[in-house]
């Protein structure tokens, strides 16, 4: 009889082995144990809000957008039910299917693809969202009897200057954000969820990301984007009292016809290609002026420490110390009625383009309470007056409504279909 291969069981064995091997090197043991502990971390799939939003940002991303291919509402619901069951198992460190990668009938393809055998949960979160196309198609037809429940704010984002959108990298009826501290675990999640969807939904596009470009917790150091700068210093943090309620979570009163979205959020994704080679030729002083921060410390040009508040009134000689087109100034909440985003983006490098340049940049993800107040005005300001736009080309764009978390016995997004 085949012994059951348990991802978590193997992990336990690994820990014990590490303990023996590290017995003579106490310092190293501590490091290894800490790293192992991080990988062993798992987040509850169910709760008031979906995991993967305020959760401390993991190191890796696989994000996928889907077109729904079935015309039947029942099939759509069954897909969400199947996804819920698989996601709950995988985020707990288990297999995608009920049976497992090697435990089933050998004449059947396994119900889990197997590349996560032996890997712990790795902090995996799986977050689901609904695009505008789930409610009405391009011709305005009600696809699943949901049209009158479409949130007012959930519509295709307007065209922004410098958008060069590739349709195969944009839009989508459904989305799944899989984040983990091991890239293989994140890819395993999307791969298996895509497989479960065949016949009901098909992958429209997907994006891999690495090196989180923002932190969502004060316990996390600020990471760097591919411009080489710290990114997300001023990001909204889970520890800030009331900030998430004010800027991230949709309230029941926000949109009467979309009360099902209460406790949820809006997810904006933007694939922002950087013209890396051109950027790299800019003098350091110019790079810092474009961003409005120093490259080393990440301090605003008007301060000395990363966490200093920028002073937009400061003047050097006759010019503002913080240039009028500096990125920090253009997108700062002070100039947008205090609107803040919870950013959760990742760096990406999809190899090189036909000319040998890096196909790289920032896969921007932001969670906001209302894109009309918390994203669109800021993106417009950035597109028209941000010095960084010279080095950015937006090739993908999408907006999704992310439903609230679910209780025991519910499936993700159930409130929409109630």
């Amino acid at each position, binding site marked *: 009889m085949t012994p059951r291969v348990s991802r978590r069981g193997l992990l336990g064995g690994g820990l014990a082995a590490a303990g023996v091997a590290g017995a003579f090197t106490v310092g190293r043991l501590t490091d290894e144990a800490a790293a192992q502990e991080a990988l062993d971390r798992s987040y509850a799939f169910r709760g008031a809000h979906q995991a993967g939003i305020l959760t401390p940002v993991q190191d890796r991303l696989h994000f996928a957008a889907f077109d729904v*291919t079935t015309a039947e509402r029942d099939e759509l619901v069954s897909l969400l039910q199947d996804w819920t069951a698989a996601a709950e198992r995988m985020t707990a460190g288990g297999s995608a299917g009920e049976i497992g990668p090697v435990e089933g*009938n*050998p*004449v*059947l*393809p396994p119900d889990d693809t197997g590349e996560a055998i032996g890997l712990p949960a790795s902090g995996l979160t799986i977050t689901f969202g609904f695009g505008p196309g789930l409610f009405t198609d391009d011709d305005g037809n009600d696809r699943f009897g949901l049209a009158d429940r479409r949130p007012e704010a959930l519509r295709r984002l307007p065209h922004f200057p410098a958008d060069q959108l590739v349709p*195969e990298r944009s839009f989508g009826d459904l989305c799944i954000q899989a984040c983990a501290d091991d890239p293989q675990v994140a890819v395993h999640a999307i791969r298996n969820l895509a497989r479960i969807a*065949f*016949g009901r939904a*098909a992958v429209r596009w997907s994006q891999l990301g690495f090196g989180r470009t923002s932190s969502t917790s004060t316990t996390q150091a600020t990471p760097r984007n591919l411009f080489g700068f710290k990114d997300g210093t001023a990001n909204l943090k889970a520890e800030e009292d009331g900030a998430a309620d004010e800027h991230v979570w949709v309230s029941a009163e926000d949109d009467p016809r979309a009360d099902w979205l209460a406790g949820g959020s809006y997810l904006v994704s933007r694939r922002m290609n950087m013209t890396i080679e051109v950027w790299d030729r800019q003098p350091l002083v110019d790079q810092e002026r474009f961003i409005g921060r120093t490259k080393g410390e990440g301090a605003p040009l008007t301060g000395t420490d990363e966490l200093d508040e920028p002073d937009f009134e400061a003047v050097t000689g006759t010019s503002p110390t913080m240039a009028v087109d500096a990125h920090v100034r253009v997108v700062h909440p002070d100039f947008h009625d205090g609107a803040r985003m919870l950013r959760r983006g990742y760096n990406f490098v999809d190899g090189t383009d036909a000319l040998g340049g890096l196909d790289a940049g920032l896969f921007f993800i932001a969670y906001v309470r209302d894109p009309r107040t918390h994203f669109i005005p800021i993106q417009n300001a950035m597109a028209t007056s941000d010095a960084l736009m010279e080095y950015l080309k937006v090739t993908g764009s999408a907006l999704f409504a992310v439903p609230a978390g679910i209780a025991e016995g519910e499936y993700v997004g159930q409130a929409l279909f109630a």
Partner: protein
Amino acid sequence: MRTTLLAAALLTVPVVTACTSNATTEDAGSADAARDLTVNSSDDACEVSGGEAPAGTLSFDVTNTGSQVTEFYLLAEDGLRIVGEVENIGPDVNRKLTVNAPAGEYFTACKPGMVGEGLRSGFTVTESDEAPELTASDQELVDEALTNYAGYVKDQTAQLLAKTQEFVELYKAGDSDDEARALYPDARTHWERTETVAESFGDLDPQMDLREADLEPGQEWTGWHRIEKDLWPAEAQKYRALTPEERAFFADDLLANTEELNSRVQDLEYTIDDIANGSRGLLEEVAVGKVTGEEEFWSHTDLWDFQANVDGARVAFDGVKPIVEQNDPDLADTLTQRFDELQVLLDAQRDGDGFVLYTDLSQDEIKAFSDSVNALSEPLSMLTAAVVA
């Protein structure tokens, strides 16, 4: 691409009930042990732990002790038809072939370096009372499916032969290329409908259906696609048209191979899992070669092949459908629906007696085909288990 008609299949052995004696259990155990073989594949030897086994579910535990990547095959009595195989076994790697084998003569073969005929030995599967058996009512359904499928393959191959005869005459004539081009996708339809059967003849398939991109260095290119390029040279770089003598050579070679194929399928016997695996295999052909437009690189008549693969898959599924309806009615419904949905997409591309060219499809249309093929292929991967359950 090579697809195994007789893919490794494991029939569920009826569980001996609790009231049987210990002796029976032990007997079953020793019979099981006789079906578990080990294979040591080194660079110059292929050592199988035994030369015979009782009929049933055999397992070959293959260890590569050589320095090259190896393969292991169980071949039918003719030494050509593949009954089961494991490929890409790296040095020091161990892999298992599980295959349901009825009584008969076979060959085992290791192929270190994955080239040539391989290191072969005779292998005998003896009659066995404990061979897996289906229930009587199931057996009637199975017999009918087997008879029908064998007839289908023979019929399609006969049509292939007739149209190939006509095609090579037109091609050799030299002044009838338009007619030859018109007949090309039509004749090939009969090949594509039973492609997994034709491909089970490991010698004929590369001689008849190899694409230029699949050639190994030094390998002679013959068959359908060699002639295809000569008939549709417009996109070829610096192409030199074949001489009448060369035309005659490739045409006669194709016809001779088709005649050989036709004679071989006359006595071919199938198992129920062959048919189910064949259905799945034909959809795999669609997914890897037709949806991508790679099969008919010069003529772009991929949609004819696409339809023919789907035809063959549908025939195979329909043949075993009564069994599936007994064992897994939901799967039978899903497959019927998904075949219908894919057919709607194909019908939308019909043009006269045939189809539009692959190069006339939009990216959205190709994506829709791909989504539909995935939608069908995923449940189709459950078919074999549902017919042998």
